[in-house]
């Protein structure tokens, strides 16, 4: 299982989609689990919105032997009902749901909602619902609370089914062969700082295994960015319209400047966090859809291959 985490606005959902598709292209059936409701994931695959019921976002079976990407959401309320029903408490479960008691239970034992969701994820993982489960975790701050819930509950609830559940979840989270966390960030100062903080908290407080960090939104390199537009046009025998040289120059300066800043942040991230990095480009083309997801998936696969090839 792979947990994708990162602060809001860093493209966590896009990365989730790209990872899932990369795995599917490599022949692994993949299930994406969403825990926060509408994220735009279905739009990325050009599909209608989905819910608690599992749907196929991207069918496999292509010429390259790719597998399905499926997805579903998991909410604490649904997970609680299902849990109670599975534990022979279906009669009270409906009453609980309608009385607002879920809130009370959740307040009495914080983290219980999270553990129910994670418990369900663990169940799906155990059942082997897919070769790879990709969990789109809640946004940064809450991701830590979310993943810490298992350890917290072990202390708060010493006996009973919740204790067992928390124990099982923690076992999954801390087993490097079963679960890894991929953190996503933008090559900018604040997101990088927050990523580093999140990484250390997750490792220290939860004990999860951190996989490569995904740096999203890097401007791709282009030829001629440092060239003088007029000289470059002459060299290619091209003709510039009036005022065009200035536009070209300003746009190039902007990109060079942003690229320098991005480079600095990437270097700083590498210095402060000893984790391998995967880089994804800023996508300039119109809005993201299945084609761009496939493009990003390809780049991720290449990136992973490079990491593996490194000594």
């Amino acid at each position: 299982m792979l947990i994708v985490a990162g602060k809001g606005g860093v493209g966590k959902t896009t990365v989730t989609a790209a990872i899932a598709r990369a795995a599917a292209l490599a022949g692994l059936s993949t299930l994406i689990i969403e825990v926060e409701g509408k994220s735009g994931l279905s739009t990325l695959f050009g599909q209608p919105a989905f819910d608690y019921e599992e749907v196929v976002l991207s069918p496999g079976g292509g010429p390259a032997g790719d597998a399905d990407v499926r997805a579903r959401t998991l909410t604490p309320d649904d997970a609680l009902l299902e849990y109670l029903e599975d534990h022979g408490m279906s009669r009270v479960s409906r009453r609980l749901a309608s009385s607002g008691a879920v809130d009370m239970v959740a307040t009495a034992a914080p983290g219980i909602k999270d553990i129910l969701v994670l418990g369900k994820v663990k169940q799906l993982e155990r059942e082997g619902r897919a070769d790879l489960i990709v969990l789109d975790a809640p946004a940064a701050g809450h991701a830590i609370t979310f993943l810490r819930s298992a350890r917290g509950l072990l202390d708060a609830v010493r006996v009973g089914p919740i204790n067992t559940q928390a124990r099982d979840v923690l076992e999954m989270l801390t087993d490097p062969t079963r679960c890894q966390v991929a953190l996503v960030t933008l090559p900018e100062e604040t997101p990088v700082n927050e990523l580093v903080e999140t990484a250390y908290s997750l490792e220290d407080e939860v004990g999860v295994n951190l996989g490569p960090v995904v740096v999203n939104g890097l401007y791709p390199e282009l030829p001629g960015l440092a060239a003088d537009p007029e000289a470059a046009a002459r060299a290619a025998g091209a003709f510039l319209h009036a005022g065009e040289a200035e536009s070209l120059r300003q746009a190039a300066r902007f990109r060079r400047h942003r690229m320098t800043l991005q480079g600095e942040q990437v270097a700083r991230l590498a210095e402060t966090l000893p984790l391998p990095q995967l880089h994804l480009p800023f996508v300039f083309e119109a809005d993201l859809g299945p084609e761009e997801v496939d493009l990003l998936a390809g780049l991720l696969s290449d990136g992973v291959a490079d990491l593996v090839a490194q000594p």
Partner: protein
Amino acid sequence: MTPPAVSLRERPEADLRRLLIDNHIVVCTGSGGVGKTTTAAVLALEGARLGLNTVVVTIDPAKRLANAMGLEGLSNTATRVDGEWPGELWALMLDTKSTFDTLVTTHADDAEKAENILNNRFYRNISGALSGTQEYMAMEKLYELHEEGGFDLIVIDTPPTRNALDFIEAPRHLTRFLDHRLYRLLVAPTRGLVKAVNVAAQAFLRTVSRVVGGEVVRDAITFFQAFDGMEQGFKDRAELVLDLLTHDETAFVLVAAPRRDVVAEAAFFAEKLNEADIPVRALIVNRMHPRFSDAAPEAVRERARTLDGTEIGGLYANLADFLTVATNEEEHLAGLAERVAPAPVIRVPFLRSDVHDLDGLAEIATHLFPPPTR
């Protein structure tokens, strides 16, 4: 109150200044990661520059920005930020727990009762676990600052919620939670009203105990017993907070970024606010990409293609990239601008670096409030 749409569209910045002068409270709302905290700080800074005695309530600011404003940790009281401006600038970082503690102390009959609640484990969990508590406490803090008086302008940042109405609904949500019929049943047995305890409540207690353990249930019961009688005070207070949020001199500012997903969320916020009869008074869009020329992106892209492999081809490709982004951003915003009209739309460009000091805030201010021309 609402000025004519035409003037707003022509000179949005003038109206944004007006908004600070005419309103007592400015609420910055929007989804996470769009620069809400920074925007709130810039608005407050401008308030102080306009000679107003201003306070900004921030929620989880980036560390360096917090340091720049002299905020070293969560605090319940405002710290003064020194600077060269005619007004005053104060800042505080919302402390959900201690705000809640104050609220409990205010409503408890006596010190002992307050102490019982504050020490209860179930109570201590509320501020961390019950959804909406942070939103509620942000609004509660706002009300406190308003009641204490002394500030001409209160600017408040909001937690990154999915739904703008969480602020409006949070107080009610909590009072509903505290005043639930079910808890009355939970409280009843130890009061000796054995006959009043119905079978369902017992079954419920047994179930919950089986799942989470008896200790947890005992904590909860003790809490509700201690809390008994305080609900009305909380409810009245929640209504007052609501009144304040819907008051004429409270302005909601929607903060967004020009990405499609963010704009969609912002549109959802605007719609919810509208349903609650709260108008969006300004839309601030951060991180706009610059538009380097008036040419059509497709034409420039085509030119890049014909010159592919040369330096000038690369330069055209780069220009086409940014023209594409700028065009998309404007397209995304068009619908949202319409939805919040006649509220002005203020665009803040991508900045050279992240904001972490007062100079950075001042730079953004030049975009939100350009110096008066003419």
